[in-house]
C-alpha cells in the first residue's frame, strides 16, 4: 500500500467494506470489520495530515483521468484536518458501538446497521477529499441517505418521523446544492473546484453566479443545521440510536461546515463582494442560533435533546467565526470544529451508556446515577465542563479565540453574547449534573451498574482528548491558524 494512493483508499475502503458487512450477516463480525476500517481511515487521515506540505496540495487523479475532465481528489491541510476529525470520531464511535448496538437494535439488522454506518462514513470522508463539485454532491447524498436510514433505526417510533423530517429537509438542501453546482457548471463549463476558483473572478457581477452562490450557501446551511434551518436536528439526534447520534454529532455537521468553507473561500474567493453580506448574515444567524437554541435547551427534559439543542448553539459558534472572515475568526471556527466534535462525542457516548443501562436518557431516568455509574457520569461532567468552556478543556480554547476574534473586529457586543451563550450552557449542563448527583434514585427503580470497560474506554479516550487538547494545542490551534491564513490567502 503506497502512500500516494491514500487519498482514494481513504474513501474506497469504507465504501467497499459496507457491502462486505452486509454479506457477513453476523453482527459481531460486521462490527469488527467496521471498527478495523475506522482505525485504518484514521491512520490514513493522520498520514495525509503529516504529508501535506504547508500551503501545498496532494492531488490524485481518479482512474488516471486528468482534470478538469476526470474527477480529481485534492488534499490540502484543511481537508486533512477535517479528515482526521471525522476519522477519529468514526473510529472511536465504532469501537464503542458493539454493546450499545446490541442493546438498541434488532439482531437481524446488525449487519445492515454497520453497512449503513460505513456508507455514511465513506460519504463524509468523500465529501472532504474530493476536489470536484459534482462528486461532492454524490458523496453528500451517499452520507445523507445512509444517515436517514440510520436515524430511522432508533427504538422510539418517533425515530421514523424524525428521519422523515430530516429526509425532506436534507433533500431540499441537497437539491439547492445541486442547483448551485449546476448553475456554476453552466457558467464555467467545469466542475473541478480549483478550475472553478480560477474562472469565477471573470464572472464578477454576473447575477447567475450570485444565484448559484445563494443556492449553495442556503443548501449547505440546511445541512449544517444553522439556525433557523436547524429544525430537523433536535428530533434526529434525540430519537436516533445512541451510536448514530454520537457519530453524526461529531462528524456530519462538521463536514457540512467544511463544505461551506470550501465554497466560500476556495471556490468563490474571499474578495468577492458577496462575502461581505454573507458574512453579516452568517454572524446574525449564528448569534441568534447560540442564544435561542441555548435557551430552548434549558427547558428540555430529555438529556439527548438538551445536548441536541446545544449542538445547534455550538454550530452557531462555529459559523460565527466564519462570519468574521479574519484569521482569528477562522481559527476559532476550525478549532471549534475539532473541539466540538470531541466534547459532543463524549456527551452522546456517555448518554449511550446511560441508555444501555437504564433504557432512556430523560432527566428522570438519570436521577442518582452519580453513585451507580460513577465513571460514566464523571465523563459526562467532564464533557459538560468542556461545553461550558472551563479552562484546561478544549471548550476554553474555542471560546478564547471567538472572543478574541470579536474584539479584534471591534464588535465587543458579540463577545458579550458569546459569553452569555456560555452562561446559558452552565444552566443546562448544571441541570443534568444536579439530577445525576443530588437527586436520589427514583423509588422502585432497578439497580444499575457501571457499563462494561469496552464502552468506557472510548468515552475516556475522548475525555482525555478534551483535556489534552485544552492544554497542548499544537495540533488544533497550530494547524487551524495555518489553514485560516491559507484560506484567506495571507
Amino acid at each position: 500500500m503506497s502512500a500516494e494512493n491514500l487519498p482514494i483508499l481513504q474513501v474506497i475502503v469504507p465504501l467497499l467494506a459496507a457491502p462486505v458487512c452486509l454479506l457477513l450477516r453476523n453482527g459481531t463480525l460486521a462490527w469488527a470489520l467496521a471498527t478495523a476500517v475506522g482505525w485504518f481511515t484514521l491512520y490514513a487521515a493522520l498520514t495525509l495530515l503529516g504529508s501535506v506540505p504547508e500551503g501545498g496540495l496532494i492531488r490524485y487523479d481518479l482512474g488516471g483521468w486528468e482534470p478538469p475532465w476526470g474527477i480529481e481528489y485534492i488534499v490540502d491541510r484543511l481537508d486533512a484536518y477535517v479528515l482526521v476529525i471525522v476519522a477519529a470520531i468514526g473510529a472511536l464511535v465504532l469501537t464503542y458501538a458493539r454493546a450499545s448496538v446490541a442493546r438498541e437494535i434488532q439482531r437481524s439488522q446488525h449487519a445492515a446497521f454497520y453497512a449503513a454506518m460505513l456508507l455514511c462514513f465513506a460519504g463524509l470522508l468523500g465529501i472532504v477529499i474530493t476536489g470536484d463539485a459534482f462528486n461532492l454532491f454524490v458523496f453528500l447524498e451517499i452520507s445523507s441517505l445512509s444517515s436517514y436510514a440510520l436515524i430511522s433505526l432508533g427504538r422510539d417510533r418517533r425515530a421514523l418521523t424524525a428521519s422523515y423530517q430530516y429526509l425532506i429537509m436534507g433533500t431540499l438542501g441537497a437539491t439547492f446544492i445541486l442547483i448551485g453546482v449546476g448553475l456554476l457548471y453552466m457558467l464555467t463549463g467545469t466542475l473541478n473546484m480549483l478550475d472553478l476558483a480560477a474562472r469565477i473572478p471573470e464572472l464578477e457581477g454576473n447575477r447567475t453566479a450570485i444565484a448559484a452562490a445563494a443556492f449553495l450557501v442556503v443548501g449547505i446551511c440546511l445541512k449544517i443545521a444553522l439556525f433557523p434551518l436547524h429544525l430537523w436536528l433536535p428530533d434526529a439526534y434525540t430519537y436516533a440510536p445512541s451510536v448514530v447520534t454520537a457519530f453524526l454529532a461529531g462528524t456530519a455537521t462538521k463536514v457540512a461546515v467544511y463544505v461551506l468553507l470550501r465554497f466560500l473561500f476556495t471556490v468563490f474567493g474571499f474578495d468577492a463582494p458577496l462575502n461581505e453580506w454573507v458574512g453579516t448574515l452568517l454572524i446574525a444567524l449564528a448569534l441568534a442560533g447560540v442564544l435561542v437554541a441555548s435557551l430552548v435547551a434549558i427547558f428540555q427534559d430529555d438529556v439527548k435533546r438538551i445536548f441536541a439543542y446545544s449542538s445547534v448553539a455550538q454550530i452557531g459558534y462555529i459559523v460565527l467565526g466564519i462570519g468574521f472572515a479574519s484569521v482569528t475568526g477562522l481559527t476559532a471556527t476550525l478549532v471549534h470544529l475539532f473541539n466540538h466534535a470531541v466534547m459532543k462525542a463524549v456527551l452522546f457516548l456517555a448518554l449511550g451508556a446511560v441508555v444501555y443501562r437504564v433504557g432512556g436518557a430523560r432527566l428522570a431516568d438519570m436521577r442518582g446515577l452519580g453513585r451507580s455509574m460513577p465513571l460514566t457520569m464523571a465523563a459526562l461532567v467532564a464533557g459538560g465542563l468542556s461545553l461550558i468552556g472551563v479552562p484546561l478543556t478544549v471548550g476554553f480554547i474555542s471560546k478564547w479565540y471567538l472572543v478574541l476574534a470579536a474584539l479584534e473586529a471591534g464588535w465587543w457586543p458579540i463577545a458579550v453574547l458569546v459569553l452569555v451563550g456560555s452562561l446559558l450552557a452552565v444552566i443546562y449542563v448544571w441541570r443534568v449534573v444536579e439530577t445525576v448527583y443530588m437527586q436520589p434514585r427514583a423509588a422502585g427503580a432497578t439497580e444499575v451498574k457501571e457499563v462494561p470497560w469496552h464502552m468506557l474506554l472510548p468515552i475516556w479516550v475522548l475525555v482525555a482528548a478534551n483535556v489534552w487538547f485544552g492544554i497542548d494545542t499544537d495540533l488544533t490551534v497550530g494547524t487551524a491558524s495555518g489553514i485560516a491564513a491559507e484560506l484567506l490567502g495571507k
Partner: protein
Amino acid sequence: MVSSLPAWCAALPLLAVPLILGLGRWPNLREAASLLAGAVTFLCVVSLWPEVAAGARPAWQIAEPLPGVHIEFVVEPLGLVLALIASFLWMVTTLYAIGYMRGHNESNQTRFYAFFAVSIASAIGAAFSANLVTLFIFYEALTLATFPLVTHAGTDEAKRGGRTYLGLLIGTSIGLLLFAIVWTWQLAGTTEFRPGGILAGKASGGLLVVLYALFLFGIGKAALMPFHRWLPAAMVAPTPVSALLHAVAVVKVGVFSVLKITVYIFGLDLLAGSDAATLLGYVAGATMLIASLVALRQDNLKRRLAYSTVSQLSYVVLGATLASAWGVIGGGLHIVMHAFGKITLFFCAGAILVAAHKTEVSQLDGIGRRMPWTLGAFTVGAMSMIGLPPAAGFVSKWYLMLGSLSGEHYFALFVLIAVTLLNAAYFVPIVYAAFFRAPKEDAHHGHGDHEHGEAPLTMVIAIVLTAAMTVGLFFYPDPALELVQQLVGGRT
C-alpha cells in the same frame, strides 16, 4: 529563577487526594494523611520564603496552551503570603474538622476531605499564578472544587445555596472576568503580571473604568456588591468549609486577585487619581457599609459572620482602589489579619453548634460560662474585626487609614470609621450576652437545651491556636509586613 518548588506546593495537596480516598475506610489514617499533607505543603511553601524575601521570583512553566499564553507559576510576595495562610490554616482546619465532622456525625467525610485538598491545591495554584490565564484556571477550579463542599448536606437548602454559589461565581467569572482577560490580551498582547503593570499607555479614560470594573466585579470571589450573595448562600456548608474556604481560601483568592491585578496589570501609577479607582472605591465603600448594616440584622450566627466577611473583603478592595503604597500595604495585610480573625470566629460558631447545638445569636445568652475558651477566642476574633488593639485587625486598618489620609480620600476614611462602629455594634452584643447575661429561662424547657461543656478537644486546640495567632500578629506583624512592602517596592 527556575524552580519546581512552586509546582510542588500546588501538587502536594492533589497528591494527598488518592491517599485520602484510599484510606477512606480508616478515618484515623485518612485524617492523619490530610494533616500530614497539610504539614508537608506548608513546609514546602515556607521553604520558598527566604528566597522570595531576598527578592528572588521562583518560576516554573507547566504548559503553553495558546501561543504566547503560558500556564506558569511565579512566586511573588503577595502570592506567597496567600499560600502561607492557606496551607497553614489547612492544617489547623483539618485538626478542627476532625472534631467537628465526627462530633456532628456528618456523612461522606472521605469526599469532604478529598475535595478540601483539591480546593487548597487550587488556592495555592491561584496564589502562584504568573499571568491572568493561569489565575483564571485555578480560580475556576476553586469554584468547582468547593461546590461539592457547599452542597455537602445534600438537602434542598444546600442545593439552592449551591445554585446561587455556582451561578454567581461562574456567572461573573465567565461573563465579566474572562471577557476582561481576553480584552487585556487584545490590548496589551500579554496577560503576564509585571511590576508596574502592562496596561500603561494601552488603556485610559472610559476604557480604563470599564476594564477595571469588569475585573473587580468579575472576580465574584471578592464579593463586591451586588455580586455578594453567593457568600451567605455558601453558609449551608459544614462549618470547617465556611471557616477555611469562605473566610480564608476562596474569598482571599478573590481579594488577592483584585490586589494583584491592581498592582501588576494596571499598575498604581495608571490608577492613582483615575476615575476607575475612584468609582470602584465608592463601590467598595458602599459594600462595606451596606454589608455591615445587613449583618446587624442577622440572627443566624454564621450568616452574620458571612455578611461581616463581605464587608471586610471590601477593606482590601478599598485598599487597592486607593492606588497608593499605603493602600496596597493595608489591603495586603488585611488579607492576613482578617484571615486569622475570621477563621477563629467561624471555628467558634462551629464549636457552639457541635457542643450546644445552637445556631442563632439570640440563643447565646450566658454560653460564655460553659465554653470559656471558645467564647474567649470569639472575643479576640471580634476585636480583630472591629480593629481594636491588641488584635491583628488593628494593624491593617491603621495602614488603610494612613493610605486614605495621605491620599486625601476622605470618603474612604469616613467609611473606615463608620464600619468600625458598625462592627462594634454587631459583635459587642454577642460577647456581652455570652459572658454577662444569664442563660434564658425558657431555653430549659423541652429537650432543646442540655448540659454541655466545651467542644471536642481538637476543635478547642484549633480555636485557641488561631486566636493566639490573631493576637500574635498584632505584636509581631513584621514577617507579613516585610513581604507585602515588597509589592510597592519602597514607594512609601
